[in-house]
């Protein structure tokens, strides 16, 4: 995973709530067996509308998606995170994320930032008035900054540390492989197994 410390870019206003993962990337795009190339499926149904925000020239270079509440509801498909990353997004700001989507994003290195609804409204207003407004998402200081505004956001220390260091979760867990082995030895015999021994 790439390290995430701070990112500065322009924002894309997505004034919709309950953006589910079927909207982020429909199931027909999930048939690939790679982690790349999913940008073609990103918001594919909405992108056929010329008025959709990603089709507007001024937002083409945006790297920070600013979305309505309950972003990423629905399926567990991590492809939704990859599609956003493959397209070029580095961070998503919303007032609420679905649990599985948020977990996936933090595993894959897409920073999801929770702000209040009024803070999201204010950012929408700013980037709709001027699409070139530079937004900085600063994970080290837990801040979002644009113009003269500085907003703080919460993120747990552990996730922040992992993202900043770009650490591999599996490697971290395998440091405790002895604890896993000890746990396995103590498991009750009546728990089912899938293979015949």
């Amino acid at each position, binding site marked *: 995973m790439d390290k995430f410390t701070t990112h500065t870019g322009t924002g894309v206003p997505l004034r919709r*709530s*309950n953006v589910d993962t079927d909207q982020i990337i429909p199931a027909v795009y999930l048939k690939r067996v790679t982690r790349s190339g999913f940008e073609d499926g990103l918001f594919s149904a909405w992108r056929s509308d010329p008025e959709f925000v990603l089709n507007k020239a001024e937002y083409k270079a945006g790297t920070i998606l600013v979305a309505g509440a309950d972003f990423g509801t629905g399926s567990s498909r991590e492809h939704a995170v990859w599609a956003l990353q493959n397209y070029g997004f580095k961070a998503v700001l919303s007032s609420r994320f679905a649990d599985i989507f948020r977990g996936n994003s933090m595993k894959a290195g897409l920073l999801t930032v929770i702000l209040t609804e009024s803070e999201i409204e204010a950012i929408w207003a700013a980037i709709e008035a001027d699409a070139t407004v530079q937004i900085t998402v600063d994970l080290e200081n837990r801040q979002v900054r644009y113009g003269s505004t500085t907003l703080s956001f919460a993120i747990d220390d552990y996730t922040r540390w992992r993202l900043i260091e770009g650490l591999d979760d599996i490697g971290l867990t395998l440091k405790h*492989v002895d604890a896993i082995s000890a746990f396995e030895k103590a498991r009750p015999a009546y728990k089912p197994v*899938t293979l015949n021994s």
Partner: protein
Amino acid sequence: MGKTLAEKIWHEHIVRSADGEPDVIFIDLHLIHEVTSPQAFDGLRLAGRKVRRADLTIATEDHNTPTIDIDKPIADPVSRLQIETLRNNCKEFGIRLHSLGDVEQGIVHVVGPQLGLTQPGMTIVCGDSHTSTHGAFGALAFGIGTSEVEHVLATQTLPLARPKTMAINVEGTLKSGVSSKDIILAIIAKIGTGGGQGYVIEYRGSAIRALSMESRMTICNMSIEAGARAGVIAPDETTFEYIKGKPHAPKDWDAALAYWKSLHTDSDAKFDVEVNLNADELAPFVTWGTNPGQGLPLSANVPNPAEISDPAERNAAERALTYMDLTAGTPLKAIKIDTVFLGSCTNGRIEDLRAAASVVNGKKISPSLRMLVVPGSARVRLQAEAEGLDKIFLAAGAEWRNAGCSMCLGMNPDQLAPGERSASTSNRNFEGRQGKGGRTHLVSPLVAAATALRGTLSSPADL
């Protein structure tokens, strides 16, 4: 202070706990399918890692699989490649796989319980959000992303933040014609699609205890539609009876049973949130919009967005009505349906097929629509055929298909055409979920069957 059921299971699975770090939780069962696993296996190969516990892992083919001509090669080359990739990965890593054509093949969340691999007190994960289904047995079961699939393959554990707990108490008795699907649709309409975020929901109360295992699975299945990663129901005699005799039921039954009987929320435990619902007042439910929280009793009218005070919800309702091509004030029962889909991990089990068959028995479906009946697994299909349900559906004019996820998400050829409208027993009414431009109304199997006969959204009471 005592513990809730979810807290008990959590604590029993902690491999490692440290201040400021997520708990490392042991996973008892890992279910795999073709869509969310290929990149995880690639990750293992890249890092030179092995599957730690192939004996706690099982795979099935479900999302992409066709439901007709299953003896022929899969027509779509991309789907075929994904299936073949799963077969190769399972072979390479020594994982048990039930392929298309195998008698144990089917939707992963139907297969686990019918094999008896889903048992109380387990932790169960799968790269699929409807893993919450298995919570009906008093297991802590939740969907994970592909990075986590790789993590479980490599370590048989997951680092997880401790969830909060929510009790949903459903007291009373369901009226005839009202099913567990209506309970969960009513719950989601009440607490919203984000209401369960960060929580494990425990469904409790007399109305829940009265449900069969399969009806309980329907409820836990859609916990994720309420935003909760997992939903649990305390195991009881209904649970134990269901597991008894299944292929993977514990050999040391008494030891297992003694443990299972300890799996209930202590009387002095405290939930972070409690929600109450009266089962006596519930009626058949149907969604009118494009998220599962946009639902109403079937007797209601399409809502008027102007009457919704919350601006974000009003905006979402307006957008939904445009997408669904519906006018405020229209009776829901006047909505004409083109396709009825009976199936999915929500409502593709034998009891669901029996319920629908009891409604269509001896009758013909409306000539203005098609009805797809897709059993949740090959075993469910065989059972239904042994009971003659296939003949009832075929005689009524419905299509009798092979097992898989099918039109729930339209990854295989079973899709809605643009503008087509379905009454579907599945779990998501998102825009384009069942096919680009398709419009979905979520319903119970009873409502699906009655709708198939009348051509408009209907309950058996309307017949």
